[in-house]
């Protein structure tokens, strides 16, 4: 069976002024369905660039990126938009909710672009919010919610189109430790139910909740190994 994500010699070159910067120097990486991967690395290691390419927000300069066996590295803007809409769910550090829309409307948005009829949108958005424990805050605006609650809305939004993979970019970076644990619990639960999750983080504690750690350094993969002593939500050692 083909891996869910398959990267083959992915390179990414940037131009910063007159300087050519090689952000990714030939990455080979596979992620199977059902995995829970954390990508780590210092700033400038290329992990954000990696995330943008994995999330189909950006194209590699060279190399192949196959998502569910389809080479998406040569897709044009609107094809990539469809891939982001159907196959990928994003969770960002700064939540990235639309401030004028309610929680429910924010969650409905990916389905609006997918052309899902109103009634079905409403049902699915409610279900997704219930799933992340926000069934009672459907009509709150983002500024009426706490950081942890906002991130739950963002997770519901990422889930609602039943994507192949959830891409989380520092999802706990703006959260206190209690909310961090809760959010990681939600990711673990989703992963248990079969959702593949790839998460960028620089906090080793957070990475301990995942199943595999890929460490980037200077545009290359330095290490790639399964997690030992994995932390399971609800069973954390009391420190």
């Amino acid at each position: 069976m083909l891996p869910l994500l398959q990267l083959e010699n992915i390179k990414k070159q940037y131009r910063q002024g007159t300087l050519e910067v090689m952000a990714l120097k030939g990455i080979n990486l596979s992620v199977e369905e059902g995995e829970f991967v954390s990508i780590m690395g210092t700033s400038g290691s290329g992990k954000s660039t990696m995330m943008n390419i994995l999330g189909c927000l950006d194209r590699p300069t060279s190399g192949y990126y196959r998502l569910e066996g389809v080479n998406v590295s040569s897709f044009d803007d609107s094809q990539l938009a469809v891939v982001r809409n159907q196959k990928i769910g994003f969770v960002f550090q700064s939540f990235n909710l639309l401030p004028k829309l309610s929680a429910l409307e924010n969650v409905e948005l990916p389905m609006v672009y997918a052309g899902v009829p109103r009634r079905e949108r409403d049902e699915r958005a409610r279900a997704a919010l219930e799933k992340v424990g926000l069934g009672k805050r459907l009509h709150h605006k983002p500024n009426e919610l706490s950081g942890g609650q906002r991130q739950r809305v963002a997770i519901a939004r990422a889930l609602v189109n039943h994507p192949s993979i959830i891409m989380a970019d520092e999802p706990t970076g703006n959260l206190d430790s209690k909310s961090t644990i809760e959010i990681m619990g939600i990711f673990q639960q989703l992963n248990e139910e079969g959702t593949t999750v790839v998460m960028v983080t620089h906090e080793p504690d957070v990475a301990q909740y995942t199943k595999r750690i890929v460490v980037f350094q200077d545009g290359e993969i330095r290490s790639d190994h399964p997690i030992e002593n994995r932390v399971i939500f609800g069973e954390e050692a009391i420190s």
Partner: protein
Amino acid sequence: MNIMECVKNAFQNVFSNKSRTILTMLGIIIGISSVIIIVAIGNGSQAAIEEEFESFGTGSFTVTLVGSTDIETRDLLTMDDYYLLEDVDGIDAISPTYTYGSAFLKLMDPQETNIATVTGVTPDYESLNNDTLLFGRYLSNNDVNLNTKNCVIYDTTARKVFGTVGEEVLGQQISLKSWKGTSKYTVIGILENTNTSQIENPDEYPDTIYAPITTVMRNYYSDTISNLIIGVSQDADTEEMKNVILSELEAFHGNEDKYYIMDTTDMMDSINSILSYVTLFIGFVAAISLLVGGIGVMNIMMVTVTERTREIGIRKAIGAKNKDIRLQFLVEAVILTGCGGLLGLAIGWGGSYLVGNLVGITPVMSMTAVVGAVGVSMGIGILFGVSPANKAAQLDPIEALRYE
């Protein structure tokens, strides 16, 4: 993304910042309302002029002597010219006129203050002057042949002299006082006065009394007539008829270039065309303000796109295509200008009645102006919305997400 969804969304966005929206719309509102007012007032004055001409008689020729110094006695128009042209092919109606009055003639109404004119005519004059008989009868050939002292008057005159309009006025006598004494005419018919300015201010205009031409000429010792009013048949070529009439008259009098034919239709057409050029020109000036309004909309849309860069990034990340973003901002621009256009239409509508009241013209709203105003304002939205919308659509999602 479905278009209704897009419109609903755009309305929410446009009206979430009310004061900015209103200020942006202001340019469009002022532009559209001034165009509406100018067109309505222009059409109104055109209609007023047409009405004035209609009460004067349209579609008829007036033959007059040219105003020059070398006029000889043989050139003067007389009743013989009337008899000459009466039987010419293509002439449907003809009436000589001889007018005496104004400063020399006083209408002996109860106040004895009104000046009047008495105009001698023949029966054809009723149709040539587009007059409508309310009571009694018009002057007949008998009246002309027998020099009767009958007359027809307008309802405005009847009200002034007899204090009433109706059958009871018929058979009563009206007195006109001149230097040679007072002459009495028996009223046999009452006509409807359709000239609005005379109806509104009856005391400021001399009253016109129609009597048989023969009677009037004899009464005031005249051998000549003032004009010949001629109506030609519908299917006749008007230019050719003018030439026929002129050559008949010139052959009869043995002269050249002494007569002039005034054609009311021609005159009305040329006044109308001057007026529509003036309206067009002022309208054009007003349209420039629309253009300025459009530029204002473009400016605000550019600012909006910059302000909402992050939102655009989020929308793109979750699957909005470039064309979805483009449509969103384009629809917002069209809503902005479309609503401005509708408001401008309402204000222009009200404003034209206000202005019309001030200048004494009833404004005429044309459907073309109304539909055009709304259409043009939405068109401006598209025209000036395209470039901000493209800017938004082309934003790089990564850059946009990073924007603070």
